[in-house]
């Protein structure tokens, strides 16, 4: 199966369903899904490489902290990733490389602002060899 994500929305907010063959793919696709809200990713070039490390207490906790770190990077630096490579991943930590560029109003369309990734109805599970996750964002 090709790892992928689908956007869904509830009355007030937005979310993504993510599918992959392993947890690394889930974390990668969740990040791309998040970045896709900020702007059209087709317009983003891979000019900058960012390294991110996260510590957490569980995989679910790690997933939310990872996404909140990416929201922070966008909010402070305007960084938007186009490609993500998770290098190390275990229940307590991850390290990742993200290839992308800085947001520029002149080059990139303005999408929606995400305040945070939430634990609301969070799902992370493996069924019939397929991993999936469901994450809701506050907008």
């Amino acid at each position, binding site marked *: 199966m090709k790892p992928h994500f689908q*956007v*869904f*929305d*509830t*009355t*007030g907010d*937005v979310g993504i369903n993510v599918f992959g063959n392993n947890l690394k793919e889930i974390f990668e696709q969740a990040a791309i899904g998040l970045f896709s809200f*900020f*702007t059209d990713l087709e317009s983003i070039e891979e000019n900058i490489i960012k390294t991110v490390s996260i510590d957490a207490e569980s995989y679910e*906790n790690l997933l939310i*902290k990872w996404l*909140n770190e990416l*929201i*922070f990077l*966008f*909010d*402070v630096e*305007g960084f938007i990733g186009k490609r993500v490579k998770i290098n190390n991943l275990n229940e307590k930590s991850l390290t990742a490389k993200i290839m992308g560029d800085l*947001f520029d*109003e002149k080059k*990139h*369309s*303005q*999408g*929606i*602002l995400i*305040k*945070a990734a*939430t*634990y*609301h109805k*969070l799902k992370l599970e493996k069924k019939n060899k397929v991993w999936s996750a469901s994450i*809701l964002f*506050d*907008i």
Partner: protein
Amino acid sequence: MNIRRLDKYRIEIPIGYVEGMRVPGIIYIDEVLEKYLEEDAIRQVANVATLPGIVKASYAMPDIHTGYGFAIGGVAAFALDQGVVSPGGVGYDINCGVRLVRTNLVKDEVIPKIRTLVEVLSFEIPSGVGSKGKLKLSKEDERQLMIKGAKWAVENGYGEVDDLMHTESGGCLEGADPSLISEKAYERGRAQQGTLGSGNHFLEIQYVEEVYDKKSADALGLFPEQITVMIHTGSRGFGHQICTDFIEIMAKAVKKYDIFLPDRELVCAPINSEEARQYISAMKAAANYAWANRQCIMHWTREAFMKVFEISPRDLGMRLIYDVAHNIAKVEEHVVDGKKMKLMVHRKGATRAFPPGHPELPEIYKNIGQPVLIPGDMGRASYVLLGTKEGMEESFGSTCHGAGRVLSRHQAIKKAKGRSIRKEMEEIGIIVKSAGRETLAEEMSEAYKDINNVVEVVANAKISKKVAKLRPIGVVKG
């Protein structure tokens, strides 16, 4: 256990609807709006009723919809000795709120220049995803800003002392401790002071379409056809980061203090714990950040009007009517079962609405009650209400905060396909400008409940009183 209609404007969620409820749930809603009431939102009102120390009832306003843990539109009060404080009961956008500004101008003077005015305002006030503010704050500036709130803005030349007197809590909650704020929140806050944000945040030029209570309108300085400006925004990334930080801290506190939760977004800590003390202090810093934000935006709005109309500040007469928070937790005194009690009142998508005579009101509003500002969607209307004695006794002096969505973003975008929302708005006399690629579709009128219905419920339930209706003619969106 079934939901029971108490009267035309209230339904009750009885104890037992979910396991562990300590008090019932009360939702202010009529049969028209009940059609939109989501099962998840009802459950959330019931879940809040299970939290330790909650008193009287878990309330929700007619603009209710599903949120994280607490429903949007929720009001819950907790006893200080046994209760909890929960970041989810305040929301990610701490002190998201509304400010209403009056002018001496009337509709006919402004309409010929409305396009220019909207252009100038959208240029002067940064908005939309990825936009940065004009203020470059040092770390020390940020510290001062979180301690002083709107007062910081006024001290730095963004507005007048008089503005502070017309802001809830004077635009500053005392007790914000900058040393408790994470480095991440400092960083997110640095470039976003003085920005509108996106989504449902806006700056609107409106006129007074209808006055329901002339005496109160006079006291507020409002008259028919008069131009007003409404600003809706909050604490931006600074507040979002504080909420994110404390959701993690509170998740640990829940384990430490062994609190049973039906939903993990309800994470909280006993009010007298160290975790709660830190959250409350950080929340105050974010509330102050938001008040400074709305103050700075109002200042640039004043300048934009002076430029476009080539008018002196005196002739413009731009004065703050009121600024009110709708995402906040505060310690307030209320009467419960005939006894005066200090309570931690959480309002998440609900507005404080104190009655006439309340000691926290500015002197000029003592006789009429607290002004309450209720924004509707960009195509319909907004309202000015007042707090009432009945609301104080019943809903901890709280009322609704807006229209509440009925369509999701995608549903709205689908509905707007092939249409130009900008043109449709122009046809009904509203000039809109937005930064985001899909904001106008997401924010179109059909995406929201009719504000008129929402306001009818709170007015008929007597938890607030109608003063005036405002109609938009120019809208700046993120």
